[in-house]
């Protein structure tokens, strides 16, 4: 197994308040790392640090064996390789679906429009939205928007995907479709870090679970064990609170 991402002793505070403390973990290529933890434990902050949206005070991130020099310029280049999908989709309202998806490939990766559009269509087809290219985000349901947001991130052919509670704002009937897409990605051996409150889904896809509490990693346990046999009392309580 090759290592894709390694985080060592990451510390992050908002002002005086520590939010992440001494975070260390490794993600191997093709692996799904699920991050669980109570609200406010630092899950979003952690994955935002991993693509440079949040600065951190100390610690080192290695990406594909290379130490990341956390300058804005470096992060900008790295973000092509690290796809991120947010809870609130955040499609660009001023662009239609095709342009939302191809903006990155065309402008950032300098692909030709024809190539980018062909790939966008292929990806849209895999999420069942090939007929939506000319529509605008406002014309889509939440679930459709989130599927487009995933396609927008995938269009850059990232080596690695970050998902931050991508189903949390969706109506229950929309959740399944989005989770299926993520499960498919996992099956295709996409490396991902997934923050979710969908415990059944987490159990289904997690190769490993990082359990975060109050800015610390309380445990890092293989997915097959975490849900049946968590090591810490906090994790047990957490699973119970999730009715799991």
């Amino acid at each position, binding site marked *: 197994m090759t290592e894709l991402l390694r985080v060592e002793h990451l510390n992050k505070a908002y002002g005086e308040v520590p939010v992440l403390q001494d975070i260390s973990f490794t993600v191997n290529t093709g692996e799904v790392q699920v991050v669980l933890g109570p609200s406010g434990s630092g899950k979003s902050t952690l994955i935002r640090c991993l*693509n*440079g*949206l949040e600065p951190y005070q100390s610690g080192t991130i290695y990406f594909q064996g290379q130490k990341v020099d956390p300058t804005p310029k470096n992060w*900008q*280049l790295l*973000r*092509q390789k690290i*796809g*991120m999908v*947010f809870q*609130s989709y*955040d*499609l*660009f*309202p*001023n*662009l239609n679906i095709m342009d939302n998806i191809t*903006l*990155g490939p065309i*402008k*950032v*990766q300098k692909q030709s429009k024809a190539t980018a559009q062909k790939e966008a269509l292929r990806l849209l087809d895999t999420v069942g939205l090939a007929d939506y290219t000319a529509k*605008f985000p*406002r*014309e889509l349901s939440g679930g459709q928007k989130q599927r487009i*947001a995933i396609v*927008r*991130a995938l269009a*850059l052919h990232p080596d690695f995907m970050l998902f931050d509670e991508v189903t949390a704002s969706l109506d229950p009937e929309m959740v399944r479709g989005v989770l299926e897409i993520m499960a498919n990605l996992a099956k295709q051996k996409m490396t991902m870090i997934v923050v979710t409150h969908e415990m059944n889904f987490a159990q289904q896809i997690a190769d490993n679970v990082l359990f975060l509490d109050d800015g610390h990693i309380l445990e890092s346990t293989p997915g097959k064990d975490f849900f049946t046999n968590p090591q810490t009392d906090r994790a047990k309580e957490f699973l119970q609170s999730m009715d799991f």
Partner: protein
Amino acid sequence: MSWQIIQQSLPMFQKGFILTLQMSALGILGAIILGLMCSLCQYFKIPVLKQIVGAYIELSRNTPLLIQLFFIYYGLPGIGLKLSAYTCGIIGLIFLGGSYMAEGFSGGFDGIPNSQIESGKAIGLSQGQLTRYVVFPQGFALSIPALAANIIFLIKETSIFTVIAIPELTNTALDLIGLYYHTNEYLLVLVVGYAIILIPLSIILTWLERRIRYGTFGD
């Protein structure tokens, strides 16, 4: 009220009308360009320029156009810069309008949710690309109502040009009244003159506002 007096004055008013339109157009165009540049300096927090822009905006917004015009028209020749009244008027309008437009644009840029900026960054856009494809189109649409109000405001402000003897609409009316004392007739033409510019313009601007808003955000 004499129809004949009104009719006789129309050719002069026509000249004033055209001058008002011309100077408004140039002044507003200049103000929009200046305002956009200022707001971008502020949005990107460009060192030094940001402070200069801040000082300019305070100065421009907190002094009357009348005083600004006097300064440009009577003050600048003191340092060897003698400009025609026409040029002074346009410069004055740009100086005043630039700050209003800057604040209009800034309001729009600030109205873009941070999550939009982050999702742009997340697909690897550079700062420049982010501005070009995300910040500017959305910020522009959001700032249109303020810009439209400023356009109307600046056109009305051109009436102050009369103090440096620019023969625009108001000046024409005041001149004619001074010469022939037909106050009612000339004031009526003056009011109608401004109404012909401002009423259709504000209808067009409202329509444009809706169009651009709809085109950008779909509501």
